[in-house]
């Protein structure tokens, strides 16, 4: 039975890869032979397929959690599932849900091809550059930390000017950090369940392995900082935290939990790592909800919080909320996919699909406790 599930899962991953190519931008000259225009012309069908794929992906996720909880999913199964996800999904078209990967490439091009400062010079200033045809933030200077820009030099230069090679090298580069993150989670918890919760979460897979968001690099570095902190390597830990901040400034909020740790360490107080992870999740949640001050809540920001929540899977309510929120955040893509605009009813629908599932889940969870006074599911 498990083998059948695994085979269907592999086929499902291949279906996602195929579906992603329906979103190829009409101006993406490098993939013009694969352009169908389906996602832009058949918006309703595209949206319905996307919702269907989301439901299936979360069904698989819950199934894997269920199998694990029932003692029917082992470490080797998890490695197999992660491996197939990591080997199949990277072949997807990365700009299915977000154009950020094009921004990363453009910023790297400004720095390493044009030899200009990407914090001053915008990609749009290089008129006639083919990237301008399909990227969506050409009129912005670099938004990310300097370490990220430096690191992107590697996939950019290794691409030797071939756009498609650069595109997939960027993805491969991000996936390396994703694998690193899974290893660190394993090292920190020695719990395969934590690895499963993070590594097979559809939001993480969509945003990291498909879209190639750099948030995972930041996550990897701050988890590595925690790893070395647990081994009392304070200086190295601080350097890694700084490196994480220099990838994306969001991890600056982790100064709060790290401050708590350093205080406990120097006062010779016993460090509660669970408390630290909760503090970490709290600090990143704060930044997450402050995001609308700058732009809006983007689904991939939730990976910052998920990284901490999966370290403490015994907090069942947090876990449940994180799964529901992962799902609802991916629903945020629906209004634009269906209506093709960021204006009109789109912002309101986004808010509704993001928060209504959480409100309902919390409400039913409370009701469940009031009437049953039992936990929703037991974790071994």
């Amino acid at each position, binding site marked *: 039975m498990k083998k059948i599930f695994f085979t269907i899962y592999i086929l499902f991953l291949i279906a996602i890869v195929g579906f992603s190519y329906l979103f190829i931008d009409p101006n993406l000259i490098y993939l013009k032979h694969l352009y169908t225009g389906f996602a832009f012309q058949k918006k309703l069908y595209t949206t319905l397929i996307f919702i269907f794929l989301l439901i299936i992906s979360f069904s698989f996720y819950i199934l894997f959690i269920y199998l694990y909880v029932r003692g029917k999913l082992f470490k080797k199964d998890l490695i197999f599932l992660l491996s197939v996800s990591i080997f199949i999904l990277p072949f997807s078209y990365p700009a299915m849900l977000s154009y950020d990967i094009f921004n990363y490439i453009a910023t790297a091009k400004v720095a390493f091809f044009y030899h*200009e*400062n990407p914090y*001053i010079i915008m990609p749009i200033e290089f008129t006639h550059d083919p990237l301008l045809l399909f990227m969506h933030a050409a009129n912005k200077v670099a938004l990310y930390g300097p370490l990220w820009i430096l690191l992107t030099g590697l996939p950019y230069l290794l691409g030797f000017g071939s756009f498609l090679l650069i595109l997939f090298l960027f993805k491969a580069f991000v996936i390396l950090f994703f694998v690193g993150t899974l290893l660190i989670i394993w090292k920190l918890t020695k719990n395969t369940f934590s690895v499963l919760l993070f590594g097979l979460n559809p939001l993480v897979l969509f945003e990291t392995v498909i879209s190639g968001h750099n948030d995972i690099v930041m996550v990897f570095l701050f988890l590595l900082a925690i790893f070395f902190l647990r081994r009392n390597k304070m200086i190295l830990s601080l350097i890694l935290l700084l490196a994480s901040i220099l990838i994306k400034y969001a991890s600056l909020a982790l100064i709060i939990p790290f401050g708590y740790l350093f205080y406990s360490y120097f006062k010779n107080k016993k460090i509660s790592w669970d408390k630290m992870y909760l503090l970490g999740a709290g600090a990143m949640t704060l930044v997450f909800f402050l995001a609308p001050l700058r732009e809006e809540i983007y689904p991939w920001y939730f990976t910052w919080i998920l990284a901490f929540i999966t370290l403490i899977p015994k907090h069942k309510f947090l876990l449940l909320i994180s799964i529901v929120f992962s799902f609802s955040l991916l629903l945020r893509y629906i209004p634009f996919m269906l209506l093709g605009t960021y204006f009109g009813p789109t912002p309101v629908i986004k808010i509704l699909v993001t928060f209504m599932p959480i409100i309902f889940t919390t409400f039913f969870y409370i009701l469940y406790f009031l009437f049953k006074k039992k936990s929703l599911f037991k974790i071994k």
Partner: protein
Amino acid sequence: MKNKLPSILLLFLFLFLPNLVIADSPYVLPYPSAMPGGIVYKIHLAWEKLSQYWYFGDFGQFDYNLKESDKYLVEAKTLFEYNQYLLGYNALQKSNMYFMLTLPDLETAKNHGKDITDKRILLSQAADKHIEILEKLKMEVPLTFTWQPEKSNATVLNIKSLIDFGIGIRQKYL
């Protein structure tokens, strides 16, 4: 006479309005920043030196030089308005120096295969605006100014010559 009135009005518009429109470049100069004499100005000078390295690259250097030229032109204008001729003179010298560096930056960028069309238009507009300011200044400032420092020889500042020199540079870059 009544029939000729619209024609006279049109003629009036053609004769006077176009001149007024052409004189106004769409280029926008910055607000005056810190003025000489205070600690803030020294910090500004230090920042100016440091940011020169931050603005690396051909376009970066072009942006930097144009930005500094704009800043010092506004500074010179403000100082001249307050009859601070020596300081204004120095500021205008700096503005001219930075402006002279802009076109070579663009030429280097062109040699590096960068499309400079938009930047060249920007530079023309900036030159136009600068000339507009300098022409106004020329009418307001004295031809020369003798600066007499304490315990030292007097220096004659040829303000008008400097303004004319500045206009000349900018006209070349139009």
